């Protein structure tokens, strides 16, 4: 068995990388969704007075 699997700190590092990945994906997905739907949101914000 390789000893690297039991090296302390690796699990934490992988968890950290996963958290960063999910945070980056979340920002990307929400930014995309909000930009995509922004014309409709603008219509609601301007209460239809376009």
């Amino acid at each position, binding site marked *: 068995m390789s000893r690297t699997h039991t090296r302390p700190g690796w699990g934490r590092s992988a968890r950290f990388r996963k958290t960063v990945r999910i945070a980056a994906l979340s920002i990307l997905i929400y930014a995309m969704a909000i930009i995509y*739907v922004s014309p409709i949101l603008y219509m609601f914000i301007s209460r239809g007075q376009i």
Partner: protein
Amino acid sequence: MTKKKHDMAFVLPAMVVVAIMTQVPFILTIIYSTLRWNLARPDLPIRFIGFDNYLYFLRVPRFPEIPEFYAIVWQTIFITGATLLLCVITGFMVSILLDNPVPGVNIARTLMLGPFFVMSTASGVIWKATIFNTTFGWYGVLVKSLGLTPIDLLSYRPLFVIILLFWWQWMPFFVLVILAGLQGIPVDLSDAMRIDGTNWLQSTFLVKLPLITNHMRVAVMLGLVFVVKEFGLILVTTAGGPGTRSYTLPYAVYMQVFNASNVGRAGALATFTVILTLLAVNLLYRSLRRRRAAEA
């Protein structure tokens, strides 16, 4: 009564209603397309003229001058094809993104589906008034802030505007269908990919993409039927203009009836539209069946 006849008795009322609702108007359209019927000329009697209405559009009287009917057919094919291509590519990319298990991903999915539920005329007005306006629209403000002079996209790039708006409105439909396909990929396959050490590009384009090709074809087939008959969005944005630069076949049908008052020629154009759509759908359906047969 045999079982088959018994079953037919249950299905028959629905079949009759569907046949009356769908086929009767179509058959009437074909009949109208063979008539000389101009609402603006009540002095001319309505009479049967065979295929003259079709020949009126198809005929090329002086060769180098191609009648505008061919340009309208090309514009319809170009708008529909470009929209579907954009929708498939971006729909796939967005579906891959939305397939990730991020917190509250359902909210993002619902937001992305928003434009699909907006009436096409309403979305046309929103874009025309709030975005493409050269004085106070987002586009105008952005271009002026860069020190440039905004051109009126609706006049100078009408096809680009229409394709963009069709794409904006119909991409969520593609996302809906492709996402359903992605979520149907078995979990053990994803686990196997991870264990085998595939990277993102390999798992996306070599494993997931081939698995959802059928979903994409179905989306393209349905999208084709929906996009090719879009009319309201063109009416409220470019109104077919400038000239006939952004006419599509359904818009030309509308103009033949409500502008030229010519029911016969409108019927011929409508029949052309149906024939073109059926041809394209048939080709796609055949490719879908061939692929299914190859997989079986």
